[in-house]
């Protein structure tokens, strides 16, 4: 079993009558790029806030590096780098001041590395933060999250509303983090192509419940898209037990299955249809099917 960096067990969180998280259990293995996907309001940020110790678990438990992030805040946060969608940076500070200020919190701050990143991101140390563009502000947030080479880098919707060049900087930071031996990244995103390209573990939240959590390869391997052709339009949509989504009309129907390798030809025969295609479902199709299911 690989070492676990973060473990959430039966975590439930309610806001009034609404369950923002409902019995969520998952673990983030060391060295993973763990992608967290889900629609807005699915519970991604709520989960991340628990990992950061900003919120205490109402029921269930949260452990990061084996510690409780609420009672061991300093020990946990000292090893985490965090970047949110809208980094909350003091606008009146200058870039250089913010870096010195942030550095004070992290014994492992790497000054040379911070300088290198500042140079790469073309951040002027004399510039006031409030004068920075959205993209430059995101880069500054990324620098502050990364320069102490955290054991766990957490990015909450980091690419939201950013131009492709800044998005590339963020993806580079993710890859850099894991190619440095043993470091782990958890990032939430609604950009599935980004998630597909950089993550190796994927979890999906939908309305506070966990839809799946597994290595990306396993998720892709077990979801199939099966296209069927009927000689005569069926009276009702084809009934397939492993289906999480059935789509179509008239003679042409598509079924998204979550069942690993299923015998598509036998399934088609059973339904009295012709098998047109049996392929791996795309991440988009998987996401949409689980969100509607």
């Amino acid at each position: 079993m690989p070492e676990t960096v973060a473990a959430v067990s039966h975590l439930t969180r309610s806001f009034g009558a609404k369950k923002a998280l409902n019995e969520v259990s998952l673990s983030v293995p060391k060295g993973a790029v763990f992608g967290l996907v889900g629609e807005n309001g699915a519970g991604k940020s709520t989960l991340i806030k628990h990992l950061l110790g900003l919120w205490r678990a109402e029921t269930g438990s949260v452990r990061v590096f084996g510690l409780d992030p609420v009672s061991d805040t300093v020990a946990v946060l000292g090893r985490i780098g965090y970047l949110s969608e809208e980094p909350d940076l003091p606008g009146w500070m200058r870039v250089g001041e913010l870096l010195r200020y942030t550095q004070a919190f992290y014994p492992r701050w790497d000054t040379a590395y911070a300088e290198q990143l500042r140079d790469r991101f073309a951040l002027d140390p004399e510039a006031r933060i409030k004068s920075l563009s959205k993209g430059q502000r995101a880069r500054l947030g990324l620098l502050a999250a990364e320069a102490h080479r955290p054991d766990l880098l957490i990015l909450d919707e980091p690419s939201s509303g950013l131009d492709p060049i800044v998005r590339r900087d963020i993806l580079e930071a993710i890859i850099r983090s894991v190619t440095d031996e043993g470091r782990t990244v958890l990032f939430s995103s609604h950009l599935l192509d980004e998630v597909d390209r950089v993550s190796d573990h994927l979890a999906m939240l939908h309305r506070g419940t966990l839809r799946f959590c597994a290595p990306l390869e396993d998720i892709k391997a077990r979801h199939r898209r099966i296209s069927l052709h009927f000689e005569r339009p069926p009276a009702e949509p084809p009934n397939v037990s492993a289906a999480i989504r059935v789509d179509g009309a008239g003679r042409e129907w598509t079924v998204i299955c979550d069942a690993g390798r299923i015998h598509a030809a036998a399934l088609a025969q059973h339904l009295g249809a012709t098998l047109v295609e049996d392929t791996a479902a795309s991440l988009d199709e998987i996401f949409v099917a689980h969100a509607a299911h």
Partner: protein
Amino acid sequence: MQLVERLKHSIATGAIKAGEQLPSVRKMAEDLLINPNTVVRAYRDLESEGIVELRHGSGVFVRESVEARADVMRKAEPIMRSALDRLESLDLREDEIRRVIENELGLRRAAKEARKRRA
């Protein structure tokens, strides 16, 4: 898988030559912005297909025996030219030559499949 196809294409066109070293997993992942495990898997797939070899401690190399497909295709050109010369000397038209070739290829395919079934 995309990366495997891309690498195969590069090797086939001679953009990456026999004996050449592929970038390290780390460099490849950082350059292409993809998960390092994806690179590891691609290299492993290429190895199992005999296209590259892993030399311990020194990296991944394209096998010496892997010839760029472009070079192999070039070898086919003179053979084809002389065959076409002889077919034309029989007064065959272009569409007839094409049919003859298709027919021969079809027969070979069928024979191969029959052999596979018997095996």
